[in-house]
Structures are given as C-alpha cells and as structure tokens.
C-alpha cells in the first residue's frame, strides 16, 4: 500500500517504543545491554516454541482444519508460557548480574536497580515481540496492494500496528510487575501477568473481529499500566501533581502510599550512577 502506509504503520507500532528508547535507555550503555539481552531472551523463547509448533504441524494431517486450529491455539498458549518462563530466567540472570555489578562498583552500590532492570527488560521483550509481529507486514505494505481480495478486512495493517503498539507497552508493564512479584515472593503477581498475557493472546483469536481483540487488549494495558505505576512508587497524588505541573520540592514528605519497599525513581537518569 505504498510508502504512506508503511511509514504510518511503522510510527504507530514503534513510535512510543522509540520514545521510550531515546529518552530513557539510549544514554546508559548498561541499559542498552540489558535491553538487547532481554530481546535475545524473548527470541530464544520464540525459537523454542516455534520449533515445537512446527514439529507438531508437520507431524499432523494438514487437511484436518479443526486439528490445525487446535494446534495453533496450543502453540500460542505454549509460547506464552515459554515467554514467561524465559522472563523468569532473565530475572534470575539479572539478579546474579546485580551481585556482580555490586562487586565491581567502587561504593558497593549497583549502578542500576532491579526495578530499572525490570523496566528495560520489559521494553526489550516488547521490542523484539513487536519486531516479529510487524516487520513482515511492513515489508508487504510497501507494495501497491492492500489486504482484501480474498475477503479479509481492509484495516489489517492499521489494526496490526495498533496491536503491536499495545503489545510493546504490555510487555514493558508485565516486566515491571513480574520482577516485582519475583522480588517480593508474591506469586499471585506472577500468575496475574501470565493470565493477562494468555488473555491478550487469546483475544487475538477473535480477529478479524478487531473490536474483540483490540478493546480487551487496551483495557488490559490500562490495568497493567496502573498497576506497574503503583508498584514503581507512583500514586494518585503524584499523578495529580504532575498533571498540574507542580514542582518536586514536596517529595521529602513521608509518602503515605508508597509500597513497603521504597522504590527509587524508575525512569530517573544518572541519579543512580556511582559517584
């Protein structure tokens, strides 16, 4: 569908991720490393889950439609579980990495906290997931044709782009919630992330009834966003202050809503660097 659609869909799908990367990750090399490693972990989980699905499909009868549909559903669910398993593995790895960083640092403090790592890992997962969802669509969107000759919906590219955007956000928030749950041994947070992921992936089976997949996904994203915000030290009061453009001079008050562990600022820049 030509260049206009190509750029439009690219910006829709990857615009917010680009903003997150440019302003919060790009300046710190350590965060870039964690981002790329996180993307790689997601890639490996996709490799394994697609291998399983591929073997299952090749071993089955290609003419049997309900079986193929069932295999697809199984494949998607298996992939979700495998991705969350790799998220856990990555958490374990990053935990070990923090010990190493503490040992290497001059003042005994790690230059980056586990919450910051959680956020960056989430963005890494999201970016790689978005790339795999969107790149081949973008490549085909450069040609002169649009989807529809076999009766599919014309809005295929647009809805895919919006779905990719919401998925990148979701992975970011799930990273924060998941790592928080692992850190504080709150297994129900981990379970909630897995259930949310399964819900969103499952809702895509409603396609091409796009309202059935996009609306629930955006609702889940709003929920996850609020939850992650609260877990990162946010509160309704902070939000009001931000929106009313107040300054940060009042932050020395004992925060009434802070979570029990006092999180440092998630997105703040070099505050956390070793002196």
């Amino acid at each position, binding site marked *: 569908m030509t260049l206009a659609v190509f750029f439009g869909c690219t910006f829709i799908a990857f615009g917010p991720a680009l903003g997150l990367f440019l302003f919060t990750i790009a300046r710190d090399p350590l965060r870039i490393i964690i981002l790329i490693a996180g993307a790689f972990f997601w890639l490996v989980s996709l490799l394994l889950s*697609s291998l399983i699905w591929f073997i299952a499909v090749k071993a089955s009868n290609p003419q049997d439609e309900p079986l193929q549909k069932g295999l697809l559903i199984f494949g998607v669910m298996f992939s979700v579980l495998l991705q969350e398993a790799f998220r856990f593995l990555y958490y374990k790895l990053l935990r070990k990495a923090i010990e190493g960083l503490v040992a290497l640092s001059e003042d005994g403090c790690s230059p980056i906290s586990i919450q910051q790592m959680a956020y960056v890992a989430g963005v890494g997962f999201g970016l790689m997931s978005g790339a795999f969802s969107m790149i081949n669509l973008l490549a085909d969107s450069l040609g002169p*044709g*649009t989807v529809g000759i076999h009766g599919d919906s014309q809005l295929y590219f647009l809805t895919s782009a919006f779905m990719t955007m919401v998925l990148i956000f979701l992975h970011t928030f799930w990273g924060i919630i998941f790592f928080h749950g692992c850190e504080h041994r709150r297994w129900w947070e981990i379970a909630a992330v897995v259930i949310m992921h399964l819900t969103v992936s499952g809702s895509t089976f409603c396609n091409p009834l796009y309202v059935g997949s996009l609306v629930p996904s955006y609702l889940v994203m709003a929920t996850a966003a609020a939850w992650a915000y609260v877990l*990162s030290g946010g509160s309704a009061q*902070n939000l009001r*202050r931000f929106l009313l453009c107040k300054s940060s001079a009042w*932050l020395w008050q004992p925060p009434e809503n802070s979570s029990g562990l006092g999180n*440092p600022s998630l997105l703040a820049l070099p505050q956390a660097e070793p002196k």
Partner: protein
Amino acid sequence: MAARRAWGGPAMAAAAGGCWAPLPACLRLLRGLLLAALAAGSCQGNSVERKIYIPLNKTAPCVRLLNATHQIGCQSSISGDTGVIHVVEKEEDLSWVLADGPHPPYMVLLDGSLFNRRVMQQLKGTSRVSGLAVAIAKPSPPQGFSPGLKCPNDGFGVYSKDYGPQFAHCNKTVWNPVGSGLSYEDFHFPIFLLEDANETQVIKQCYQDHNVPRDGSGPEYPLCAMQLFSHMHAVTSTVTCMRRSSLQSTFSINPEVVCDPLLDYNVWSTLHPINSSGKVDPEKEVIIVATRIDSHSFFWNIAPGAESAVSSFVTHLAAAEALHKASDVHLLQRNIMFTFFQGETFDYIGSSRMVYDMEKDKFPLRLDNIHSFVELNQVALRNDSVLWMHTDPVSRMNESVDVQVRNLLDILGSSSLGANVTLQEAGFSQPLPPSSFQRFLRARHIPGVVLTDHRTAFQNRYYQSMYDTPENIRMQYPEGLSPEETLEYVTDTAKSLAEVATVVARALYRLAGGANSTSAIQADPRTVSRMLYGFLIKMNNSWFQSIIKPDLKGILGDVPQHYVAVSSPVNTTYLVQYVLANLTGTVVNFTKEECLNPEKSPNSETEMYDYAWVQGSLDPNSTSRVPYCVRSTVHLSKALSPAFELRQWGSTEYSTWTESRWKEIRARIFLVASRELEIITLLVGIAILVFSLLATYFINAKADVLFSIPQDPGAVAY
C-alpha cells in the same frame, strides 16, 4: 503473543547460546536443536503476501524485439505498471477507459475479438492506459486475425527497385491482406495474454465485485487492480543495443548484456551422404528441398504456426521418408538435400546464413552445386485440392533458366497424376511469395518453384498469430480418444498432406534422375498424422519419447510452439532433427559406447554420418526402454544472421533482429486502497509518534514528581 503468522513455518536462525551459565550439556543440546530447526525448516510463501496478491501464472508477455532501425513490442516500467482493472467486452466500454473513468490509469482486460488495430491505436494514443491484458478469443475470430505485416519480410527478399520493381513491396500482390502489423508496432505499456480461462474469470469476478459503478455513482475504493511486470532492457534499435552490450562486455567487470540476436540451427540432410566437413565437387548436382520451421505471434513463446510452418515441414519430412524408402535411391544421378530453415519469419535468418556460408565456402556445398530448388510453403488449406506452383518471372526472362524451370514444372505436373492433387501454375504475372528461395535467387538465378495452397493472397487468415492452431488446418479428432489413440488416429488433414508429400517425393525422384516407375513412392499418412499430433497438440507422446536422446527428455514438456528464440537449439529444432533421423536414417548394431564415440570404430565414417543413441520405445509390459543407435545424414548448421558475424548491426541486406533481455516477467491482481486512507494512516502515525515523544520527554523530565523516592535518599539499590 498474538495469534498471527509472525512465528510461522520456518524456525528462526538465532545465534547459539541460550544458557548463561557455562554448562556444556546445555550448549550441546541447544546446538542440536538449532541444527534440527534449520534443517527442518523450508521457506513457504509469505502468507501476508498471499492475503494481498493473486498471482497470474498462465500468462504470456509481449516482449521487445529490435532490428537495425526500430524497436517493436511492449515495455513496462522497471517496477511494474499498476492500473485499475476495466473489462472491455464491447467497443462502448472503451469510452470509460479513454475519457469517463474517474480512476485512471486503467489496466484494460480486452476481449480477444476486440484485439484489432483500431482499438489498439486508441489505447496507444492515451495516457490513461497503463497496460493491457488480452483474453484469448475462443473460437478464433471468424474474420481472421493476423498481427503480421501485409507484406511479410519486405525488403529482404529478392524483389527490390533493382530486381523486379513492379513486384517489390507487394505492389502486385498483397500476400497477407488480413495483416494489421500489430506485432511490428511499439507500445509503451505492457501487454499480456491470459491463456487460462479460469484466471480470466477470476479477474472478471474481482472486477464485478469492486469496480462496477453502482447506482449511477462511480465505483468506490477499494478497487481491483492489476500489476504487470515486463521491463525490457534494450532500447532504440539493434545498433544501439549491440553497441552497448559489446561496450559492457569489453570494459565492464560485471557486463550487462541488453539484447541477444535471434539465432538457432538449420537442420539439413542429404539423400546420399556427403562429407560435412569437406567440400563437394562442383560437378555434383544437388536439388534443394526447403521449408521453414518457425513462426511468430504477438506474444512471446506463443507460435503454434500450424498452417504457416508445421504443415509444410511435416509434409517435407514425410516426403523425405518416402524417398528414402525407394529402392534405387543410391543410383540416382543427383543428390537431394532436405533443408529445414529456422528464423525465416524474421527476414530469412536461416536461409540468408546458408547462402552466405555457401558463398564464403563455409558449407560443404556451393551455389554452383545447386541444380534446382523446391520449396514448400503453406500447403494445408488447399481449395479443391489445387496446389499452386509459383516461379520467379524475372529470372525466367533468361532463356536457360526458363527452360530448366519449365522442366521442373513439367516433372511436378506429371508426378501429380493419380494423386488427389492438382498442380497449377500461378503464372508469369505473379511474383514469388515470401519464401527462403528468394534469398537463393538474390545470389544466383537458380531454377526453382515454391508450392503453396494459395495463388494470390494467403488462404491462412491467421498468419503468424496465436490462432494458427490445429483447428485452422481442420484437424479434428473424434471424442473420447486416449492420447495413444489420438497419436495413431489418421485425420483428413494428414491424408491431404500425405498426398502432397507423395507428389513432391515423386517429383524429386524424377528430378534427381530416377527412371523407374514412381508408383511405389508413397508418403505414409500415419507418419504424417503422428507428426502433426506431436508438433501441434502434444509433444510428450510415446513416439517422440522413443526417438530422442535420453538426456533430452526435458524438451518434451511444454505446449508445442515454434518461436525461434535466442537460446538454441529450441525444442522444434531438436525434434525435427530426431524425427528426420528416425525417418531417413538406419538402425546400426552399435553398443552405447560405440555409438557415442563413433570415431573409435572402424568404418564409421563420422564425417558422412551422424550417430545418435536414442531412447527407444517402452516395452509394453515393463518400464524400461530398449535404446538403439541410429545412423543418419542429419546435420545442424548455425542459423545466425550474417549481420552479426560481420558486425554490421545496421545492415539492410541481412536480418538484424534481436530480442531484448529482461529480469522478471509476472502479473498479479490485488485491491488498492484510496489515497485518502493512506494519508490518514500516515498522519495518525505521525501524530502518535510526536505525541509519544513529547509524553515520554515530559514524563522523564518530571520523573521525580511522578515516582516517590524512598525515605532514605541514599539507598538507590539493594
């Protein structure tokens, strides 16, 4: 994880290294898995692409051909031409394309009956047409259709302002009055032929669903569109494209050749064997029998050529077989050379090259050796079983030539007694029709005759078109026959051509000095019928399979067509060679090694004979074949225009036809969205990008407001 194809068939080729902790077992396992994944995965078609495009597989393009001064054919832009489809089934539909339609440019789907000069001139003159797809008309247009010239091969025959000017440029007789000259026009948009009626129906259905105006208003987006790719590399003329190709070949590291000359091989065989690498004595006289074996149409590689080529060379092959069966051929005074010229459609490539080789002593024979010349042109559509004999009136003004021509005509006339063929002279007022004989006449005044089924204009109303099919020569088979039965069934056309072949064979026998009765010389209608079936309907039949070499099985795959092409030899040349070898050669008792290397055996006389190890026929109850060795006098001689040997690319004396090169030729249909939707998508994308950049910037700048820092400001991490 969305349920979309993003993680489909092939497994990803990720770098190895899943486990962080250096456990060797883990690494080995992962490596093994990766290898299995890479080995198992095979790339299928991209499924998003399959959602968007429907490829059209059974199409034939119109390609660009060039000669010394012009380019003909069609050209598309380098990334294909796209247009909204409009189906034109009657002339009134054209006005939508030319003036009324609101979404130019259009890709016209033209009904075959409207593919004529008038419509094409209209389409050529407008910029609202981005391409054309022609649906082949079934049945063939009754008024005739010929995209060839009215005066074929004009300027390259014998008649010019210096020789018989009253006959030059078809002043006296227009040979192809139905000819529109469409093949020789230059179009700036691509033109494709839709061969498959099912694909045409798919396109028409898409048009009906999306492009037809409803309720008086214009059709709305999304619209059904088609894209045709046929970008040609050569431009302007042969002079330009050959110059550019030779510059590239000389100076460039990675040469980009843009065109190739049309070339192939002539097939020739003699009744008595001659030394193909030596020279024949000037006293030995040879009678040349000639036919052409190629044809052409508007579209590339579509040239059924039933009446224009196949009928004549099949008759020629049958006559050769009949002659070889005569008992006393080795006693004949004169030799007979059966010659099959390739490339005659394009200004006599094969015959001009043979004349050139004869003049320059590169061919075993010289022009002095030629006693007379008999040519068979289109012979299948005889009216009242009359076969016309054409001679050249200008050369006959010479007394000695006239005597020999008269002798030739008498022998032919006497050979037709008893056969259902009436030979009549075309007369002194008629020039020769376009024939290979004209090239020989240019060099020497040889007595000769051209046999055709027409006196003035062609009987063939589909000369050099895609409609010159078996139906044109009235080949009919009864219903319900299996391929084997169809191969063996003798049609009326075959019987009629066999009679012509009998007359020709008998006449040749007499011409060569044979004194005995000719009643035993008979062409076999079954052979003629099998050849017609093989060359016109199905090349992959049991007879052809049994007479070719084992490594040439691949040439029997396609629908038969006879375009000369640029890669040689083409299927037709191979098959004519092997059929001739089978019909005129002898089976010798050689083993496979002896047959493939005959120079090692004594008495094999490799300069005189050609040895071929052929597959043989299938045993009735087994799957293996019984191959054998065939010895024949069949040879190939290069049919490349002398203009390319002499590097005179602008020559007006020899044929200079070349064919352009190209990268890809394909066609596909899809839906296009409106420009407004595309711009909206872009604007939404830009808006989201800008908004998210701004939001992220502000959230980051005010992060300390949004996220409460802990009570102990020093504790940054655990």
